[in-house]
């Protein structure tokens, strides 16, 4: 055990059991999985991505590249979880990844021997050709050999939630600067959200032995957090990682709600997605310590110095007993003090700089060898056993050690600040990239702004909060400055120790070495962006948070540039890995998107309906009866019973718009190609509207119920679009017109009652209604009362039969259906679905969605003569373009197979008989096809070049996808009752 007897922010009264790779361990409340593994002396926790090298825990934070584990089992298994961010809970099960058969014996470590072949660009060079091998052979091979953890492949059993936060000031990070900012703004009454990814506020204050206002820093952080909790205007979101900055001062964040619990309460979401809109934001995300690039720097036991301090001070877990410190920053020396205080031996401090910090002598007195001007050249052992050091004079010193704590200085954690494209700039003074410009409203503070010393960070947090509050018109009272212990933050980075014998890693997660960077440069990949793509530096779950800058520094050195000239890459959201499930939230499975149901839905579901999605609507496609073998049999019956008797179809999904006002008819004349100002009250008329570009937009009927009141219907698919179009026309194009429009799609349930017996049925259902052709002629409409409710009847036909549409308020829609079915019982009434509807409209040659495809003109659809020459309308001018009036344009025709039993299929292309099947000979295509039970053969609608002039001609229907060429005869698109006798009957 490496657990210290006392200290740390752990609750020794609450032991927790957990397992790692099947072995049972114990930790305490307050531990992370990583700290518990450290406390249990577990040194190797994973294998690397490419070479399968054993790896240990590198950091103590969310930047961890190595310690990726799979948490949980079965459907709950979550791969690639950073052990450093996992709160330990009782019964936690974790497994290492990317090793086979076991962590300690990984056969794929043989990849290391092949490393000359696995260098940067390996995949690009090796698997170039033959191309067809890529999908079948290379990619599966690579994925098996190199990779992260595996998904369970099972549906995610957890639920996810979302919330929208609004505040004056969002503080991202609850370290010293964040706490100081939140306190300052909160005390002034500013509405604050403080989001912090850790389980408790404090950041580095919990990791280091410093004093703030006379209190141990961790205690001060706890009391600050307590004060914030009492403020009604402050909301503290712990375990909440802000992962992205978006336009409009929006921030994305994920709150982990139950991941840290052994047993989540029923119904509790696992995580919550936050969209936070903040007038101002302070980026107080601190800084991330840089590793140093030297031979064997990836050995388990080579750890970030700050992480060593965190494990000792926060978790009372000792990562090693005999340590060598390799640091070019004063903070590394503090770690040496922490190690000594915890009872570990610090063998040597290796610092390439010449002047040690002021407190160095204390360490020397305790037996530590100080090696200024020296470097660690090579580390051996797995975990660490030996450290090879080159002294300032060039002599080599070999030391035994089980821990190397390294620090190459600090990078402000400013990734979020470049999400909107603001490129960080290099500071020669601080040796790091800083945000010069940031997204609107966002300012970095504290270590994220380069204020590394504690006193500076606290003061900067206060300053930024006061500025932000001041921008919002709130004055913050001047408080006393926070008093802190002295701290030195000097740093003079060392980018590279050339290694001879062993690999020196730049990016631990992607196994990118110093040699890979050199190779990339030699091969011409000399920009930071190219370097990233070629070597994979900075990719995958950690996005290069620890190692990326070292790579850029090496690139700069190799190309003879300064780091400022070489620059750095931008970060894009998500800054931290985010589970897809939390982005989906409730919207999964059948709830993937909202569903619209008509009033007859439940009746239909109970009567054999299969539903088809039409946009968000669920429409009954057909109603299967017992004994029917397939859908075609069902649809044929529905068509035959309708044409032979009477059928009812729910057409409520069609768009319905009330257009009212003194200028309503003027607007409709300008929207449609045909005229509506002449339409009599109590009459309906079919209309077609064009887009501005002259192509057909939509069709439908318009009914006039009063001089100033029209009822417009649209296709189901275009209901929303036409509503927008009308609003645009009346609000933007012609605001001078006095016309109002509103969607009433949802108000009315509409049934089509079609077939020769439709009149008899309706007369039975509505005995007081005069349905004679004199009172209710074709295209007539009327309002009437049914059960005391206002109803409407329209004599319109899509099926070509004698047909009516009846509308009632949707609340009574199911009742009406039951009434109609009851009235129709003696007439053999049948409910028919959208498929039978489609068959009948194809039989009648009516254009629908397949023909209104955005590429057809009114003339293409045989509706050219509807275009009024007496008035202007939207699309009129553009419809006269030569390309739109070319007689060779494919236009609507019917097709019937020469051999009656043969099936025509939509999507097939049309060729002249005997012409080769090449694109140049393409004459059009089949838009809609169906089996006509009325004619007992396949029929189709098609768009054919010069089509209407070619009736009687034979064409080849070419269907290379589904196979086979079929010969068909071009005919009128109206297959059934071309004179329209039935519907006028």
């Amino acid at each position: 055990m490496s657990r210290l007897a006392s200290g740390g922010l752990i609750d020794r009264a609450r032991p927790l059991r957990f397992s790692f790779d099947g072995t049972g361990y114990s930790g305490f409340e307050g531990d992370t999985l990583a700290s518990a593994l450290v406390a249990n002396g577990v040194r190797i926790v994973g294998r690397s991505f490419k070479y399968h090298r054993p790896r240990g825990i590198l950091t103590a934070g969310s930047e961890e590249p190595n310690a990726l584990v799979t948490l949980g089992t079965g459907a709950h298994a979550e791969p690639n979880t950073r052990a450093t961010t996992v709160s330990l809970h009782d019964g936690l099960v974790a497994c290492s990844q990317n090793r086979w058969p076991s962590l300690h014996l990984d056969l794929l470590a043989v990849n290391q021997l092949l490393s000359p072949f696995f260098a940067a660009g390996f995949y690009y060079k090796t698997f170039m050709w033959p191309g067809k091998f890529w999908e079948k052979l290379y990619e599966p091979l690579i994925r098996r050999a190199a990779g992260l953890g595996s998904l369970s492949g099972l549906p995610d059993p957890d639920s996810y939630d979302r919330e929208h936060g609004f505040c004056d000031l969002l503080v991202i990070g609850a370290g010293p600067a964040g706490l100081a900012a939140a306190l300052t703004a909160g005390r002034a009454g500013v509405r604050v959200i403080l989001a912090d990814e850790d389980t408790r506020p404090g950041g580095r204050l919990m990791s280091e032995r410093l004093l703030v206002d006379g209190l141990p820093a961790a205690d001060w952080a706890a009391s600050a957090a307590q004060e914030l909790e009492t403020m009604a205007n402050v909301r503290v979101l712990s375990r909440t990682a802000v992962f992205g900055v978006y336009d409009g001062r929006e921030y994305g964040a994920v709150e982990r709600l139950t991941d840290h619990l052994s047993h989540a309460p029923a119904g509790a979401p696992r995580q919550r997605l936050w969209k936070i809109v903040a007038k101002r934001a302070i980026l107080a995300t601190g800084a991330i310590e840089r590793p140093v690039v030297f031979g064997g720097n990836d050995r388990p036991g080579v750890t970030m110095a700050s992480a060593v301090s965190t494990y000792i001070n926060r978790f009372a877990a000792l990562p090693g007993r005999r340590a060598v410190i390799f640091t070019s920053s004063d903070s590394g020396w503090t770690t040496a003090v922490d190690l000594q205080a915890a009872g570990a031996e610090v063998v040597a401090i290796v610092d390439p700089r010449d002047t040690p910090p002021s407190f160095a002598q204390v360490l020397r007195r305790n037996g530590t060898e100080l090696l200024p001007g020296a470097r660690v050249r090579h580390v051996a052992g797995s975990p660490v056993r030996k450290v090879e050091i080159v002294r300032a004079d060039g002599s080599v010193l070999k030391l035994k050690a089980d821990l190397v704590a390294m620090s190459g200085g600090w990078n402000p954690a400013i990734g979020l600040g470049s999400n909107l494209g603001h490129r960080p700039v290099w500071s020669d003074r601080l040796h790091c990239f800083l945000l010069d410009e940031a997204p609107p409203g966002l300012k970095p503070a504290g270590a994220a702004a380069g204020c590394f010393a504690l006193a500076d960070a606290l003061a900067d947090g206060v300053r930024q909060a006061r500025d932000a509050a001041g921008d919002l018109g709130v004055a913050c009272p001047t408080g006393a400055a926070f008093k802190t212990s002295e701290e030195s933050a000097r740093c003079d980075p060392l980018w590279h120790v050339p290694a001879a014998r062993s690999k020196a890693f730049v990016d631990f997660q992607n196994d990118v070495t110093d040699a890979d960077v050199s190779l990339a440069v030699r091969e011409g990949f000399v920009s930071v962006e190219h370097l990233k793509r070629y070597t994979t530096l900075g990719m995958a779950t950690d996005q290069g948070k620890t190692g990326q800058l070292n790579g850029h520094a090496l690139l700069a050195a190799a190309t003879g540039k300064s780091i400022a000239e070489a620059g750095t890459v931008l970060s894009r959201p998500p800054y931290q890995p985010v589970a897809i499930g939390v982005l989906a939230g409730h919207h999964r499975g059948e709830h993937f998107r909202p569903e619209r149901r008509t009033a007859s839905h439940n009746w239909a579901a109970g009567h054999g309906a299969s539903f088809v999605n039409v946009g968000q609507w669920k429409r009954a496609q057909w109603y299967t009866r017992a004994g029917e073998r397939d859908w075609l049999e069902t649809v044929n019956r529905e068509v035959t019973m309708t044409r032979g008797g009477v059928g009812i179809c729910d057409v409520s999904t069609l768009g319905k718009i009330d257009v009212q006002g003194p200028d309503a008819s003027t607007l409709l004349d300008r929207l449609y190609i045909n005229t509506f100002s002449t339409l009599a009250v109590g009459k309906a008329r079919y209309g077609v509207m064009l887009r501005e570009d002259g192509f057909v937009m939509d069709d439908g009927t318009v009914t006039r119920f009063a001089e100033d009141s029209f009822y417009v219907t649209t296709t189901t698919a275009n209901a929303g679009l036409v509503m927008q179009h009308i609003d645009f026309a009346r609000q933007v194009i012609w605001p001078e017109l006095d016309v109002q429009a509103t969607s009433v799609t949802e108000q009315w349930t509409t049934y089509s009652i079609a077939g020769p017996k439709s009149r008899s049925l309706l007369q039975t259902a509505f005995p007081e209604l005069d349905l004679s052709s004199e009172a209710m002629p074709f295209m007539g409409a009327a309002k009437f009362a049914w059960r005391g409710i206002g109803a409407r009847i329209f004599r319109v036909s899509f099926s070509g039969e004698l047909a009516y549409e009846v509308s009632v308020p949707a609340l009574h829609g199911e009742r009406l259906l039951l009434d109609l079915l009851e009235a129709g019982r003696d007439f053999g009434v049948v409910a028919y679905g959208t498929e039978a509807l489609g068959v009948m409209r194809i039989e009648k040659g009516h254009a629908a969605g397949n023909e209104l495809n955005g590429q057809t003109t009114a003339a293409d659809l045989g509706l050219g003569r509807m275009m009024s020459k007496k008035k202007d309308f939207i699309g009129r001018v553009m419809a006269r373009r030569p390309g739109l009036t070319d007689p060779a344009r494919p236009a609507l025709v019917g097709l019937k197979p020469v051999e009656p039993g043969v099936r025509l299929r939509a999507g097939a292309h049309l060729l002249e008989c005997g012409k080769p099947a090449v694109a140049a000979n393409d004459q059009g295509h089949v838009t809609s096809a169906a089996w006509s039970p009325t004619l007992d053969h396949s029929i189709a609608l098609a768009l054919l070049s010069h089509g209407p002039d070619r009736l009687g001609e034979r064409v080849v229907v070419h269907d290379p996808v589904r196979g086979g060429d079929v010969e068909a005869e071009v005919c009128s698109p109206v297959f059934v009752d071309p004179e329209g006798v039935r519907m006028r009957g």
Partner: protein
Amino acid sequence: MAEHLIHSEQEGWALATVMARRAVGPAAVGAALELELRDEPVAVSNGAIRAIGTGPGAWLVIDTEPDHGFADALQDRLEGLASVSDQSSGYAVFRLSGAGARTALQRGAAIDFHPDVFAPGSVATTAIAHIGAIVWQVDDSPTYDVAVFRSLSGSFRHWLEETAAAL
């Protein structure tokens, strides 16, 4: 601990879209309805009917205890002043109340429901769980009404129940 949320669907209400004619201001429409109408996203009531401001010159007028033929009567009163469309079947109205109501809405709509921003009488036309919604605050207990297109009420109820369970 779970915050309390009571939710129910309103029944028997009559609703109508009222859109002012071009040159007619809210005061004139309001005078005909005995309501102090403003061109703002606010709900006003005269005890008998209430009007929910949904856009410039547009209101959703509601009668919670309607007489037969509510929309026709409204149209008569607004002759020459506004266009009226019955929407009594068009919208389903859900009532959310209790300590958890504000949080539940905050988890649905991307607008700010803080009492300083959204108070009794406030109205928003927004989206909840990808469903278009008109939300207004009834009182500061707090109670909110949410109107959604009726065909979407099943999906809305699903969101509401899932959100209530997670409070």
